[in-house]
């Protein structure tokens, strides 16, 4: 078993990648808040992450992450259906999710550091 490139690290990396991509989609939604006819887009994080876990790392690049257009949101007269509240909340949630991932990754590296230094504080 590799200490650095283990399953947990790989999964964490995938989760962080997916979170970063979702942040981009949310940013695009916010950028287009005044564009007539623009429709909100989003990534189904849970489904995409589950799919990323189920497949081998070698062909992970082969399956695209699906960005879908969201339905059921209230549409303004100009055909735009971006909701400020939804996007702001999603942005905050996404940010915290990213922070959590980074914290777990850091603690993993710290543990590794601890093993390398033989338990002494370095």
């Amino acid at each position, binding site marked *: 078993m590799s200490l650095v490139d283990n399953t947990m690290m790989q999964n964490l990396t995938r989760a962080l*990648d*997916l979170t*970063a*991509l979702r*942040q*981009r*989609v*949310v*940013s*695009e939604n*916010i*950028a*287009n*808040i*005044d*564009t*007539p*006819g*623009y429709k909100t*887009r989003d990534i189904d994080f849970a489904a995409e992450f589950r799919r990323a876990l189920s497949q081998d790392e070698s062909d*992970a*690049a082969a399956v*695209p*992450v*699906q*960005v879908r257009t969201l339905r059921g949101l209230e549409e303004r007269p100009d055909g735009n259906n971006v909701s*400020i509240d939804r*996007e*702001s909340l999603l*942005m*905050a949630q996404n*940010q915290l999710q*990213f*922070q959590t991932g*980074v914290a777990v*990754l*850091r603690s993993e*590296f710290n543990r590794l550091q601890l093993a390398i230094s033989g338990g002494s504080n370095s």
Partner: protein
Amino acid sequence: MNLFGLFQVSGSALAAERLRAEVVTSNLANSESTRTPEGGPYRRKMAVFESRTSSPFQLLMASTGSTNSGLDSSGGVRVSQVVEDQAPAIRKYDPGHPDADASGYVEYPDINPVQEVVDLMGAQRAYELNASAISAAKQMIQQSIQILR
């Protein structure tokens, strides 16, 4: 996934919203202008927004991290054109005015200050929202750097 691409997306929106605010303030400033270089009274202008969101293919490339094929130049929003309102001018009777026509009427632009101020507030709020999206992206990048420490 390149986190720096988020700046391009939100930055384009900041530029577009600022241009919109400039157009609106120009409308407010010229609400009494009876003379323009093109002739006739000032006409109300409007900024038209156009989405430049990345295609699913570009997002796929971004998700695999294999390349940043054109992603830096796309995404976000831009002002595609600034159009002029074609509404007829308001005619006021003022024979002493230098721009009065033969029958003594002066043409003033048809600008509703209330409508313009509401538009200005909308641009301001959208600007703030995008600015907070930028600080969110900045924080995420700083957190990633924390892994190295």
